[in-house]
């Protein structure tokens, strides 16, 4: 868990994606960022996360008809987005 907070946001998104897309995860996320958000992996910020999740939902739905897998994947990403929001709020309070 400590590693999650230490690694970059991009790495955390790739780590979640790896469970669903295996070796293609890194390439997949980099492509979504570049094609839809016009950003490089290093430029991914917590503010981009929700729109990235929306795009991922659309794109993964094209890969499988199993909605369970899509929803599970999106829920994992949503948890990451919530954790980012929580961290940001904490920092603002300080």
């Amino acid at each position, binding site marked *: 868990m400590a590693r999650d907070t230490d690694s970059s946001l991009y790495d955390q998104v790739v780590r979640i994606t*790896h*469970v*669903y*897309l*295996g*070796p*293609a*995860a890194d*390439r*997949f996320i980099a*492509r979504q960022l570049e094609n839809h958000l016009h950003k490089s992996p290093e430029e991914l910020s917590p503010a981009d996360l929700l729109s990235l999740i929306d795009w991922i939902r659309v*794109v*993964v739905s*094209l*890969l*499988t008809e199993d909605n369970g*897998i899509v929803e599970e994947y999106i829920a994992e990403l949503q948890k990451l987005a919530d954790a980012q929001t929580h961290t940001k709020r904490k920092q603002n309070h300080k």
Partner: protein
Amino acid sequence: MTSQRQAAQPISRSLQQAALLVAAYVLLVFLLPASVATRHTYHLSALEYRSALLAVALPSLLTWVAAFLGYAKLRQYVTVVRKSPEGSYFDKLATGCAWLAWSLPVSSLFGLLANAAGEEWSAVHGAATITDNYLGVLLAVVAFSLIGAASRGLVNHAKLKFSLAGVRGLMLSFLAAGVLYCYLVFRRLDLTSLGSTHNAYSLPIWLVVLSVIIPYLYAWFAGLLAAYEINLFSKHTNGVLYRQALQLLVGGLTAIILSFIALQYISTVVPSQGHLVLGYRLVIITLFRIIGGGGFLMLALGAQKLKRIEEV
């Protein structure tokens, strides 16, 4: 739009090549002299003989198309992942599959020509049989060696290790099939004279052992090991969606390898008589060709799904 057209090029080129080879086969069936032995056995006219030959060859011709489609789809996937860490192994796998796909029309067309030549000039019969056998051995050794190198690379890249039970099962099945193969081949040879060429292979026994049996056993072992390794790789790869696509590809590849081994096994244990014989050998060979064709279609579907993951 341009990239889509470029991506479709290898597929259309492969299908064109398959269509040309099918056309060449059909043309040869009608141009080459009809087998007197078959016509006499089944009381067929020349046209009836040719129609029967085409009908019998139809599953094989469809398998050629499936095979060319399968390796072209895999090649297409490779172009997308070539720069990835596992890209070079998939590249080698695609090359191995291309050799297997090409071996189908090459050996069939050569067989057709060799049979016609053997029928016309009996002196050529021996040379045609020898060349046919060596062509089969060469294609099997090259294709299975390439596929074996690719599967070994994937397993090493993923740092996977064989289970003892898996290796024992593989060795046992290979040894059983290998010993049975030697027994069945030796039954067809005159073992009292090692130099005699009066056998279905038109070669002295010592040369059959050295240049046909041993290379085939090597190729089959490489093929079986590759099937085992690639299945191991697909089971241990992360990614639910990636694994689903990979398992389709691997399932197809396993069916292809097993069907090729079975076809080579049958064609050496029960050598062709040089003309069309409607019997159990033909039925079994057709069955394994259909299994191989199905395998190539599965391979194409798996490669298509993997490519989609890399494109969306």
